[in-house]
């Protein structure tokens, strides 16, 4: 995917280093960064390893699903975002926790439960101050 915009609708991908949406139609996945020196796994991409300061960080695709550690449904999200908005922290088997939106229609939002399996998808997370749609990772329940 192009770094800044993928079509004429002014969609912007937030930090394309963080996740991959394959061109061949396969499902998107997040990218962890494993420190070659101390072995610690980081997400998202960092310039150096905060633990040992090595700058040799190796891209490691993360699994596509994780377990919901906790969540909330915000009725007053940041300005410019629609309520109700569900967000949560998803724990990946590789040892990283990712905070992101959970994409649920309002009538199903009550079905979100701690411990449920969620999978990563790409979607519009917000509009930026110029009205561009910002694309990033979001989560949906595993069916």
């Amino acid at each position: 995917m192009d770094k800044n915009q993928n079509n004429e609708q002014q969609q912007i991908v937030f930090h394309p280093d963080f996740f991959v949406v394959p061109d061949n139609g396969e499902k998107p996945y997040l990218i962890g960064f494993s420190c070659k020196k101390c072995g610690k796994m980081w997400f998202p991409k960092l310039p150096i390893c905060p633990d040992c300061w090595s700058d040799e960080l190796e891209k490691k695709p993360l699994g596509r699903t994780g377990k919901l550690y906790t969540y909330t449904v915000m009725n007053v999200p940041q300005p410019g975002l629609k309520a109700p908005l569900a967000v949560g922290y998803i724990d990946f088997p590789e040892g990283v926790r990712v905070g992101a939106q959970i994409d649920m229609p309002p009538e199903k939002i009550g079905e979100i439960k701690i411990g449920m399996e969620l999978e990563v998808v790409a979607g519009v997370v917000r509009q930026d101050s110029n009205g561009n749609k910002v694309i990033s990772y979001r989560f949906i329940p595993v069916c």
Partner: protein
Amino acid sequence: MNSREVCIIGVGMTKLHKKAAVPVDELGRQAVMAAVKDSGISPKEIQSIYIGEMGGLSGSICLGQRICATLGLGGVPMANVESACSSGAIAVHQAWKDVATGRTDISMGIGVQHLSGSRASGTAFAPDANDPEGIQGVTMPGIYAMRAMRYMHEFGATPEDLALVAVKNRRHAMMNPYSSFQNPITVEDVLNSKMISDPLNLLMCCPNADGGAAVIVATKEKARQLGAKLVRIAASEITSGIFTNGFRDMTTMEITYRGSKEAYHMAGLGAEDINMVECHDAFVISEFLYTEAMGFCGHGEGVEFIRKGMADYGGKVVFSPRGGLLSCGHPTGCTGTAQIVEATWHLRGEAGDRQVPDCKAALTHVTGGGVYGLDNAACTIHILTR
């Protein structure tokens, strides 16, 4: 560390306003004048001044100089400090450090914030929109709601339990003329208030406020000369968050565990010695997490502790006798200083109807700052004794 004993010789604060009629610098001046009058010193005796304000919100640079200029307090070292909600407490810490290390004999810390004049009402504080979680739209109430959700899941707390803290702190605030809110509320009122971020209703979140507070510190010798009741700073502790993106336990407030341990060590005291706490109760869940992090009960035992009234008058320790952030309101940069003002009044026996009986030791605590990967960006703890 080789350091001199430091005492609080003067405190002052404004009423905390929902919407102050005067601008931010005037709030600061009112607090300074009250503190100087309380101390009995001449204002020119103050040898260094620190000002905490949550930066950028007032739109002012060098806010401290603006506050102090027309009070004739210039010509001394002066610095504006910012670490979100910890700003005001860090200003007092800097003043303490000057006296403790012998750089000065008398110094002052000021905390001030005029939120109503600087932020749109009805919005929630949020992490930077450019950080990986900020971009997803999460707010500070959202983050604390997620802590609350996990805490309820693990330890069986209910929304009614959460509401107890809001009701208790409002009951305390009814006796505090400096508080923004003084009308009584019930558990039903709390649970029926607007849902902000599940499970946190509006009355479970601290309101914005405007206010100023000032604390003047000095050597023990100077405090003795002035003849006031001695209030000693037994510990002044600041620390910062540690980056992690692994499976951190969101019901364990790591920075406060670490900070209070260090503060107890510095003071040579333990939780069992503390009579009152002003904690960073920006959301009701905070009091559960902090009774545990500060060692008043074990992990997960905050529910029972609060249900049994152990954090109230007649219990083990009084949490938020002034009404906390929940009822006083949270003028971010001011709060840490205002907590120290309150604790000083209790240690002197000057807290009126809300006086904590025979208060010998008080702990004040503010955290602050939503930065990606940190539980909290800052944590500042003071232990005061008489």
